[in-house]
């Protein structure tokens, strides 16, 4: 009779992203328990799947991989089983629209855990599942969180980079989500490689300035968790934000475009909110303003011109 070892990594979220992270951790030899609301058998017999948060909390490192729309309720339920010893890391893209709260702010509000981190970077679920080489970023101010995540996920096919700018990484991920819509839009509207590169570079610069106004480090946006993540959108035809952007460029109405993207696009309510933030802080935000108009049904060519206009 083999007794199951105490899990070293708990993953919350039975969707593709959660399963991909569980697979990646399994690849390093970690004992993984996956929380999924659907109690379905997994193709990987070594993966312990549960519907019980208490089981996940037996691991010291807990990774949250649920859509941002349910993050709060999941964290609240999970929080009953967590304590100060837990290292809680999330891979959730998005910012709260009301107060621009980050998901780690939510973790702090809903659980007693304080040693927190976030995952970011260009890595895709598919790469993790298939073991194709890719790179991921972990942001945390606690060195032991950086160490634990690196140990749990780094393998010959996945390089894990650490940053202590947790907030910056969370903002960068969210802003990249917004800008990916623009990438899809510009591609579909016929922007060539040179123009696309110019649009992306200027958009990244703008995002970095916004982040500085939000108390983050600018360089985080220029790194793997920002620029790197955004570059991946160029090749990712099926990234929901890119699909949405392309549909809008073809003058598909917003609600139909959303349906085509299949997955929820967190960036839609966030874009106008970022524009408001930019106004409040007096940061120039031409790209986000343009994206906001695109969402409101602006005309493609005029929009492309506008995106590239603006000062300096």
């Amino acid at each position, binding site marked *: 009779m083999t007794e199951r070892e105490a899990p070293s990594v708990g993953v919350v979220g039975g969707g593709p992203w959660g399963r991909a992270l569980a697979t990646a951790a399994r690849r390093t030899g970690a004992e993984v328990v996956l929380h999924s609301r659907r109690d379905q058998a997994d193709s990987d017999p070594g993966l312990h799947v549960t519907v019980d948060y208490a089981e996940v909390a037996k691991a*010291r490192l807990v990774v949250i991989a649920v859509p941002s729309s349910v993050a709060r309720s999941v964290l*609240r339920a999970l*929080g*009953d089983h967590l*304590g*100060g*010893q837990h290292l809680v890391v999330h891979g959730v893209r998005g910012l709260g629209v009301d107060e621009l709260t980050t998901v780690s702010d939510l973790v*702090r*509000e*809903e*659980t*007693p855990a*304080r*040693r927190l981190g976030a995952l970011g970077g260009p890595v895709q679920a598919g790469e993790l599942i298939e073991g194709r080489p890719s790179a991921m970023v972990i942001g945390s*101010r*606690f*060195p*032991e969180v950086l160490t*634990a995540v690196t140990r749990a996920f780094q393998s010959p096919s996945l390089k894990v980079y650490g940053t202590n700018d947790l907030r910056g990484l969370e903002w960068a991920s969210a802003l990249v989500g917004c800008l990916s819509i623009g990438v899809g839009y510009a591609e579909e509207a016929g922007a060539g490689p040179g123009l696309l590169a110019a649009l992306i570079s200027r958009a990244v610069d703008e995002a970095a300035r916004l982040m500085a*106004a939000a*108390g983050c480090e600018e360089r985080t946006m220029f790194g793997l968790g920002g620029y790197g993540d955004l570059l991946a959108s160029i090749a990712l035809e099926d990234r929901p934000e890119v699909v949405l952007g392309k549909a809008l460029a073809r003058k598909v109405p917003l609600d139909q475009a959303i349906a085509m993207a299949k997955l929820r696009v967190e960036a839609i309510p966030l874009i*106008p909110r970022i*524009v*408001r933030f930019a*106004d*409040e*802080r007096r940061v120039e935000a031409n790209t986000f303003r343009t994206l*906001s108009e695109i969402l409101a049904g602006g005309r493609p060519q005029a929009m492309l011109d506008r995106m590239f206009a603006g000062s300096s």
Partner: protein
Amino acid sequence: MKDDAPIFGFNAAREDIVRSVVSRVVLSAKDPLLALNDAAYHETKRLEASKRGPEEQKELAEWQKLARSLGRMGDGERREKLASLVEHMGWDVAGNFDPRVFKVSSKLLPPVVTSLLAPRTLVRLARDPKRLVSLSALDDKVRVEGPVEELRELSRHGTAVYVPTHLSNMDSIVFGYALERAGLPPATYGAGKNLFTNPVLSFFMHNLGAYRVDRRIRHNLYKDVLKTYSCVLLERGYHSLFFPGGTRSRSGGVERRLKLGLMGTAIEAYARTLIANRERRVYFVPATINYLITLEAETLIADFLAEAGKGRFIIEDDESSRLGRVTSFMRKMFDMQGAVVIRFGKPIDPFGNVVDERCRSFDRRGREVDPSSYVKDDGGRVTLDPVRDAQYTRELGDEICKAYLRETVVLETHVVAAASFERLRRASPAGDLFTVLRQRDVVVVPRDDLARDVVKLRDRLVELADRGEIVVGGFLRTASGGDIVERALRAFAGYHASPVLASRPDGIAIADTNLLFYYQNRLAAHGMAWDVIAPPGMAPARPPVFAKPASPEATQGGLS
């Protein structure tokens, strides 16, 4: 009953404490050569730049000699030298606590000063407390608010770290008095060394359990001694008082960024009690000290307005060193009800959780948490980890700043200053701060207009207070605009050297714009007054959004 607080046995334990500090600092010094070189470099630089008396001359020569001979010393000799230096610093920092002086001064201090006694007479009188008048007369002048009962019980179950806002050199004395009034045990604290040389305040500093912090000394060895000293005190259960703002607020504003060094020692102290198997929990009590008028307002705001970089880090010659000013300040205090309000906030643990009166920690969803779980590693062992603790402390600092905003007590002078200053701004709409400030004796506001502005502002503040974002006291809540203005005028008059607001036949003349700026700044971080004092890198506070239609929602620029 509270005489069992460890501070009452401090003098007996002092030697032991200094010894622990010295051995801990010396043992943790990995490279004595580096530590000594750093110390010699900074001390030589400091002493060369200072006005040198014979004492400093001698010190300088010693440091120079040390710097020259360090290279030739063997490791053993360096360690010895390090130990002797650290021991010297340890004793220099260690304070004194005289229970007799504590009892007398915390009850009787203010009348003593008002009786215009010179410090020397005070020492004599302190030996014979019966000759002093009782000070219950002060009880309604100084208000003490907050969860006092809970804090009293809590002080029996854990070690308190009081972290109040800092405006004045009177703060430590006033806060000590507030603790006594609240029935809380006294707290030890690190006071700037200049307070020990201040002719008026030094007596209390020496005998109220203060230890000396010489902020002119910049080298790491000294900082280690200070932090270790604070840590050892907390470990032994001494309730402590830190002013996490570092120095007195120059602008008059509520602190928005804190110096975390000393606060960070709390987690190490707690972890050490766990390692020693005698857990003693540590909790923080944010508090605000609110003055109707501030003793050193003129000097502080002048320093704030001095050209960038020219502001002084340590001010030794301000109002608090002049007996006449302290006396007239005290008189003012006696004259006005609620001239000083000390408000304790809700206690929290070093990890930002709220604690109840038994020192149990609860997270934001009300679940009980074991605080020791935050300092354990992978294997469940308690560890000392300065990097980890620095991060916890940073987040704690944010929580404390939020508490400062919630616990700020608005007083009449703040409201009237903010309303008058708004008038000044309107008189030069495009003006920068200095253009606005230059309008001395230019603007006269009809009394009724000012009263109306004051009421409008007061009503908003009350709304904010009802949401728990600030505190508005009883008088201010219900008084008429005219009465509020009158009370502010009375508070200003007779203390500040020149009139702040002058009463004229045609209205109220805005006279001392600098001081009005100083007092309005108390509401800046709330977005309730012009915020030009936000710390570097921090966005100015924006006016809160009010439910009433009168609010400036149009400026929010929402999405169409």
